[in-house]
Every structure is written in C-alpha cells, then in structure tokens.
C-alpha cells in the first residue's frame, strides 16, 4: 500500500516525467482538437515513438494522449460544431448553440472544468477499483476468462457507432484476424499463405494504424469540399458560482455514470457522454433549454466522457480486456513494453502501475491549465488545412508502422487495413469493434481451448462455474439489450402515434 502511494505521488517529484506529460498534453489537445484525429489514432501514431523509452514514460504518453485528446474534442465541438473526437459528439448539442449566442468562452470553461473533475474522479476510482478487481481476478481460470471475453464481445452490440449486428460482425472479424498465424498449442499454420512473417500472428500496431489513421485519411478525402463554420471567441471563462451551482449535480452524476460505463468492456467515452448528456437532460429543471445552449448539457457530456477514461483503464489493466478502442492501443503499448495486463500487474509491478495512475492525475490537472489558458490558441489548429495535415499523418502512419519491427509487411498491413477500414465505414460498420475483437481474439480461443481440456470436451460444464455463468448471463443480456430497447422504442412510438391520432 505504502509502495503504491509513494509511486502514485512520485510522478509529481519527477521533473522529466512532468515535462513529458506537459508536452504530451499539448500534443493530445492538438490531436483531439483536429477533427478526425482522435485519441485512438493519436495513441496509435505515437506508440512507435515510445519504443525506446522506459515503460512508465511510454505508457504515460499514451494515457496522457487518451485523457487530453478526449477533453480536446470539446474545443471543435463547441467552436465548429464538429466533434474533434466521437466522444465529444454530445457536446455539440449544447456547446455550439452556446457559442452561436456569444458564449463560446463560457461553454469551453464549463467543458474544461467538468472534464477535469470527471478525469480526476475516474483516476481515483481507478486507483481504488483496479486492485479490488484484481483480487477477484486472481480466482479466474480459463472458463471465467472465456466467459468474460464473451461478455466483452457482447458489449460491442451496444457501442454507439454502427448497429448492434454490424458491430458484432466487426468484432468477430477482429477475432478471426487474431487466428492468423501458427496455432498457439499445435503450431498448425492458419491463413499464412506461406508467409512466415505472419507466424506469430498479425502485429497489432500496423492493423490499428491502418484501421484508425489510414481509414480516417480516406474518410477525410470525402470531406475535402465541405465548408466549416467557425465561431471565434475572446477568452475562456471559468464558470461563475451560479454556473457551478447549476452544474454540480450534473457533473457528480456524470462522473459516476462515466466511470461505470468506462469499466464495462468495450464501452468507451462515446457511450458514456451520450448517457451522461441524456441523464443531465432527464434530471434538469430546465429541459427546454437542452439543444439550445444548456450548460448542464455540456457539463454532463464532458464530465462523463473524461471519467470514462479512468474507468476504461480498469478492465484494461486488470483483465487485459480493452475498455475502449484507445485502451486497445494502450494494451498493445503495455505488451510491447513487457507489462502484461492482468491481476499480477498489481502485485509484481505495483510501482509502475501506480506511477501510471499518478501520471493520469497529473495529465488531468495539466489540461485544466492548458484548457483555460490555451484553448484559444489550440482552437487555431482547426485552421490547419486538410491538404497539409493528412499527408503528414500518412507519413507518420507509414514510418511508425515500419519502425516497430522494421518490416515492410507492417507497411502493407497499414495500407490493407486502411482500405478495409474505409470500406467498413462506407457500409456503416465501425472499425472500433474490429480492433477490440483483434485484442480479445487470442484470449477467447486460448481460454476456450483450455476450458475444453479442463472439462474433457464437455463445454456446457463452463456454465456450472458460478462466475463464468454470471458473465455468460451478462453477455446474453448485453446481446439482447439493443434489440429490447429498439423494441420498446418502437412500442413507445406506436403508443404515442395512437394517442396523437
């Protein structure tokens, strides 16, 4: 415990690490403010730069990008009505109307403060919840892990982008990608086509860079002719006492919602912010203001999406199951640096884990300062023309992918998955489930195989394990939820139309 607390606060005594967090926060805010370049793409692009670093510094860079880019999506959401990251989509609903009526500074001030409170709350929740969850996870055996990964995959049905079925197909496609290479137990070659560079499977990083960065490049090419309205602002204002009183309840509620949603596998900041926003509206006394410039709307969405960042790190670190698309990249970063996610991380690498938590806390404080004093400058980055920005992203993506293993195969993977990702998006499939499926794929198969060995091939005995059964029931509920809610929506609409007739 003492070691954990010392490691947690040691970050604040390390000037090099603080400097790194400051620089990365600036980079993260710029990345988040640029429409199309979100936390996931940013983390994937910066991962190769961290290869020679100390693991704590490397993961600090990735988590700082995650926290700061998630906040910075609000800058463009408020000023140009285009969320810099998907997680800021709900911020546009009230942020842009506020900016249109001349209160851009106030909206950004509320966003910065709510994001910081949400982020700090979630870091403390992470520091407390993760070791507790790790104690439970010590008891997990292959059947429990198998059921848990199925639960993670089932949650893909309810992430907001794409439809439930499309997300599940994407997730299973990702799981299939994880089967490429030699089978772990039998060494039988699968889908390698004689290419021995694929013997150990697809490298995650080029696939991620392709799915997120290269597909986004192609997606941005569909928008080269679009004009964006930008609202200028004078300065970012701290919320007034009246504002604080008005948003206090909303922020507190969204912190809880965001952290809880973040802890659920696969559900990330985007879902959290949507639920945070709708709950802010549901509990507000000024419902009619929502959509026209309610500061509770901005606070609810922003507190929820930033508190989801810490929440999403819980399953990521404790179970190796990504809490969101960005944490899927962070898992790859952890593995590259020899930190295998899992409960043993909390006994064998306590100092590193808690230093990472401390760095996340420092990043949240850092973007409060940068957000308040630098948002006006950061807003200028949205003026960088696409025809300059995206070719640079292209170069970073290619060289970054190559540098990991110094293999041209990784460059080709970026191109292939860039086109695959773009086509998926073209037909309404989100790429995040593919990335999450790829991370979970090996866990699903290995734990299923081991469970079958334990139960002599009688797979149904998995259901006799209480924890596994709970996870499987949760998985079934996760699969059913989008369909049940669609059904209830349809019934509600039918009832409303009957009443109105």
């Amino acid at each position: 415990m003492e070691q954990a607390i010392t490691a947690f606060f040691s970050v604040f005594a390390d000037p090099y690490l603080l400097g790194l967090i400051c620089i990365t926060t600036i980079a993260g805010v710029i990345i988040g403010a640029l429409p199309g370049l979100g936390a996931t793409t940013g983390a994937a692009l910066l991962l190769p730069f961290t290869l020679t670093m100390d693991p704590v510094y490397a993961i600090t860079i990735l988590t700082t990008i995650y926290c700061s880019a998630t906040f910075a999506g609000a800058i463009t959401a408020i000023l140009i009505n285009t969320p810099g990251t998907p997680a800021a989509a709900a911020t546009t609903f009230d942020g842009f109307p506020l900016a249109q009526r001349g209160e851009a500074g106030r909206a950004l001030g509320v966003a910065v403060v709510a994001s910081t409170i949400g982020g700090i709350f979630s870091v403390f929740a992470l520091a407390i919840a993760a070791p507790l969850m790790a104690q439970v996870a010590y008891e997990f055996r292959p059947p429990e892990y198998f059921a848990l990964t199925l639960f993670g995959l089932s949650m893909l049905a309810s992430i907001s982008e794409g439809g439930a079925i499309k997300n599940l197909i994407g997730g299973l496609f990702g799981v299939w990608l994880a089967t490429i290479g030699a089978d772990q137990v039998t060494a039988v070659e699968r889908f390698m086509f004689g290419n021995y560079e694929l013997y150990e499977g697809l490298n995650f990083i080029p696939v991620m860079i392709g799915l997120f960065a290269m597909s986004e490049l192609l997606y941005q090419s569909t928008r080269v002719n679009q004009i964006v309205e930008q609202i200028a602002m004078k300065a970012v204002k701290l919320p007034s006492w009246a504002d604080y009183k008005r948003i206090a309840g909303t922020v507190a509620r969204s912190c809880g919602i965001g952290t809880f949603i973040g802890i659920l596998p696969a559900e990330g900041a985007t879902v959290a912010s949507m639920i945070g926003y709708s709950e802010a509206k549901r509990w507000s006394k000024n419902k009619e203001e929502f959509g026209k410039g309610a500061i509770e709307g901005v606070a609810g969405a922003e507190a929820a999406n930033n508190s989801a960042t810490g929440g999403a790190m819980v399953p990521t670190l404790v179970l190796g199951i990504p809490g969101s698309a960005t944490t899927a990249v962070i898992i790859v970063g952890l593995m590259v640096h020899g930190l295998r996610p899992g409960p043993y991380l909390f006994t064998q690498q306590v100092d590193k884990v808690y230093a990472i938590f401390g760095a996340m806390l420092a990043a949240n404080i850092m973007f409060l300062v940068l957000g308040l004093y630098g948002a006006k400058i950061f807003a200028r980055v949205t003026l960088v023309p696409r025809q300059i920005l995206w070719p640079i992203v292209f170069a970073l993506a290619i060289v970054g992918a190559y540098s990991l293993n110094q293999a041209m195969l990784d460059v080709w993977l970026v191109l292939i998955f860039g086109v695959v990702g773009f086509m998926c998006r073209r037909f309404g499939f989100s790429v995040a489930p593919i990335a999450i499926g790829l991370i979970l794929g090996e866990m699903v198969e290995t734990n299923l195989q081991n469970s079958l060995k334990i139960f002599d091939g009688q797979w149904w005995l998995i259901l006799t394990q209480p924890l596994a059964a709970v996870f499987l029931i949760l998985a079934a509920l996760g699969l059913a939820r989008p369909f049940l809610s669609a059904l209830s929506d349809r019934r509600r609409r039918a009832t409303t139309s009957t009443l109105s007739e």
Partner: protein
Amino acid sequence: MTNNTTGDKSSGSTSGDVTQDAPFPKPRPMDFAAPVVIFVFAAVVAYLTTTFEDASPLIVGHAMQPRNFPLFLMAVICVLNVVLIIQTVLRPPKRRDLEPWQTWLSMVVLGLFFILAAYADLFLGIIVSMFALSILWGERRLWVSTLVSVATPAIIFFVFDQVLKVRFPRGILTNLWYGA
C-alpha cells in the same frame, strides 16, 4: 464575436452525406453489397480451413482442431449476416452519394505508394504520395506541397534513424544516407 470559414474551396459537393429517402423505401441491390461480401468472405475462410493440417490428437486432446474455431466464427458471422439482411429488407439504410473523385484517386495514390515503396524506395514513395495527396485534396501552392512532402519525411527519417535507431530498407534515396 465573428464568424469566419475554415478550410476549403467550395461547397459544391455534399459527398458522403446522407440524403433523406421516402418514408418506406425499398431496398436497392447496393444495400446488399456488404452482406454478399460477408458471405463470400466467410465461404473463402471456410474453404481455407479445409486446407489446414490435422494436429495430433495427443496434442489436441479434448480441445478443438485448429480449423474448428475459425469455422465456428464464420458460422456465427453467417447467422448474424442473415439478421443483417432481414434488417436491410425491413429498414433499408439511408441512401448515400458516391464518394467524390478525390477519394478514389487517394486510393490510387496508396497503390502508387505500394509500387514505389516495394520497388524503388520507401521514402520516395512517401514523398510522391504526400505530394500527390496534397495536390489532390486542393492545395494550389506547389511550393507548399513540395515543402511539406519533402521536409516532413526528411525530419521523420532523421528522428527515427538518429534518435530511435531505426534502420530503413535500402532504396534509391536511403542509399544516399546509408551509402551504396
């Protein structure tokens, strides 16, 4: 408080946007493109699994043969795909305009990059592709495109080569640095 515009040139095309359909639209053949591709993909994967070697029963024990897990995945994907087709019939997706020509040419640039990187030089491929993308996406100042497409790869090369000790594949340009 002022309004200004960022970015680009004209508001001509609204490519990529969705346009509203009639209240009860009928599905079009293109709406089934994704499900058809998914079925073909699943069939190809299922066929490929038949080419896998059988692992020794001593190693496999009560677990599955290596081909079974991908086959199982494809079976589930096919079931979900049937549901997707039913959804498409009942509620066709909103109609989308075709992507603008810049998108298709950007893909051609990626193909060009592949050829140059594979047969000439990785960095030559990056420079040519960056320049082509920049021009294609509307940059009218040739010197800006040239500067960005030459300076960026040069900086990236030296950062990765000198700081991160990454050795790039030999080619027309990299040989200038590494020596022939």
